[in-house]
């Protein structure tokens, strides 16, 4: 077993699944010789050749449209959209076709594709390179939306995403692409796409996050522990379909909850999580569920992005508010 970054873990998952399954191919901008702008696909073109690692024109809609065709034809395409800000050009293909292939044909055709999208802020990137647009995809029925939070998680979740019979949007929090290393087994392992993960067990408050925000949240939990407050931290992992059972059971136990995400607040996934807690655990609550989120503003450029992104202090304040309601 070796310590790996998320970039290395994703690369390993791609490499292993391409070795296992000749129907897997990857396509996107600069993913071949360049190895992707984040080097996620580094070395794959040398190993698998230009037939299976395909540099495309700068055409996000065609990248996803072509991938849909490949998937319908029985292949397992993995498309990369270079940055989340460029995914909007592909939304029509995802919303009008990828997500509907199965329903429209009642399963006569299916669309087992993965669209990998580096997303989120915190790396001082240019405009349109730092948004958190996961809720756009969550709001499209027929798509699964997965966000890994660690290298280990990334490898196991991506393996499941590639093998899934339905379209999966795999959003990679680029802020933690290289920020941490952890043990990632060489062997294959799959993490199911229908289960949230309890990262830290606790009794006083449930903290819910995904992607890069999980690490902010874990730090907040740690500082609360010093004050004698026991936080349970849950990594959502698969944003859609959402495993609310794990959340609800936790909230019933702790009676308090805080949801943390980078995305704008209104209609962010936090809103849905709060709604489900209200539907299924309202009577257990000792305080309204708090949200620590980005704002309903345009994502600022790097000079102000630190202010925009939830940080440990904001999460700690929210925990204080639910503890002392």
């Amino acid at each position: 077993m070796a310590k790996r970054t998320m970039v290395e873990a994703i690369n390993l998952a791609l490499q292993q699944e391409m070795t296992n399954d000749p129907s897997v191919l990857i396509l996107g901008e600069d993913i071949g010789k360049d190895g992707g702008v984040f080097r996620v696909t580094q070395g794959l073109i040398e190993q698998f050749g230009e037939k299976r690692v395909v540099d495309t024109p700068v055409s996000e809609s065609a990248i996803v449209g072509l991938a849909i065709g490949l998937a319908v034809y029985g292949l397992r395409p993995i498309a990369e959209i270079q940055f989340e800000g460029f995914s909007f050009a592909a939304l029509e293909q995802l919303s009008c076709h990828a997500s509907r292939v199965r329903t429209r044909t009642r399963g006569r055709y299916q669309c087992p594709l993965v669209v990998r999208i580096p997303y989120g802020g915190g790396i001082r990137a240019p405009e349109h390179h730092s948004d958190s647009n996961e809720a756009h995809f969550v709001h499209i029925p027929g798509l699964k939306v997965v966000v890994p939070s660690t290298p280990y998680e990334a490898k196991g979740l991506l393996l499941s995403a590639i093998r899934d019979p339905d379209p999966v949007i795999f959003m990679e929090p680029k802020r933690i692409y290289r920020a941490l290393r952890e043990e990632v087994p060489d062997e294959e392992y799959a993490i199911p796409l229908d289960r949230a993960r309890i990262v830290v067990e606790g009794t006083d408050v449930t903290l819910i996050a995904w992607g890069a925000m999980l690490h902010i949240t874990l730090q907040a939990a740690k500082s609360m522990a010093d004050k004698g407050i026991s936080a349970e931290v849950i990594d959502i992992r698969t944003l859609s379909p959402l495993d609310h059972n794990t959340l609800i059971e936790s909230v019933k136990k702790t009676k308090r909850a805080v949801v943390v995400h980078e995305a704008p607040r209104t209609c962010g996934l936090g809103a849905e999580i709060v709604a489900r807690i209200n539907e299924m655990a309202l009577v257990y609550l000792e305080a309204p569920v708090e949200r620590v989120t980005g704002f309903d503003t345009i994502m600022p450029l790097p000079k102000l992005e630190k202010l925009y992104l939830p940080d440990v202090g904001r999460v700690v304040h929210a925990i204080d508010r639910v503890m002392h309601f």
Partner: protein
Amino acid sequence: MPRKAIKDFSVERLQILDEHGVCDEELRPPLSDAQIRSLYEWMILARVFDEKAYKLQREGRLGTYASILGQEAAQIASALALEPSDWMFPSFREPGASMVRGLPLRMILQYWSGDERGSIIPRGQNDFPISIPVATQIPIGAGVAWGAKYKGDNIAVVVFLGDGATSKGDFHEGLNAAGVFSLPVVFFCQNNQWAISVPRHRQTAAETLAQKAIAYGFPGIQVDGNDVFAVYSATDEALKRARAGKGPTLIEAVTYRIGDHTTADDATRYRSTEEVAEWKNKDPIDRLIKYMATKKLWDEAYGQKVTAQARERVEAAVNEQENTPAADAKDIFLHTFQELPAELARQMEAFLNEIGQRDGNGAHNG
């Protein structure tokens, strides 16, 4: 240094059977008498079907429907050039092509009646369901062509589109990628002159749509879209090119939408009756009849028999469709994913319980 021309392009137009039924026998594709009769019979079936669908909508027995009146040659002859192993991506104005490919008339009506099960393409028929969003089927069709090339399957894909689609981003992205990857695909544009109310010259300043292919690095050809022989010949040639690994082709079939955009449209608001009358004189079926009559392949009795058989077939399909029970309420949920996620199961159960209590007789929504 003086400027010099570094590239010189031209665009070809193909017409074999003119509006008077005069045929250039040297260019005519080598179709047997039986095949020519088959072209005719499919076109009659498509026209009879179209007329019936329009009437059904007016009687409140069908939802919105997009007529193909006047465009029969373009879609019948192109579809007949396909092999069963080829794939077809229709837009939303190709019921004629779909029936040639084997989609039961009942299912075409089922779809337009508002029942998605009309899109369950029968096994063995390699077609995608119709695409309502304009041009979005283009990259997907190119993707299937890529899949075939990847697997080494010797097939081609035909993607239908309209003149309006050539203004969309997916037209550019799809054709561009197909050219770059030299994919076995034929882009068949039915230029019917009108995208709802906007005429062809407002879609592009280019003189022809065919010439757009030049910029993507593959051939484009304009054909008389009301000429079955020109359509068949150009499509056959393009498909063979594709199957031989020589890459894509764009075909612009110049035709005319005699009817309204759909049953929800009124074309008299934006175009003259003179223009429509002029195109009626170029009718694709009339000119084929004239040609077949001179070849002793058509007479009144045969014409009447074909029409009567088409009516019978359409009536039977209408009857069958109208007696198809509506789907169960569960049908809304069950095919969203291969396996029903827990939350969807929860929504479905709650909904079924609610309507079960309300109706007192279970979940049927018929």
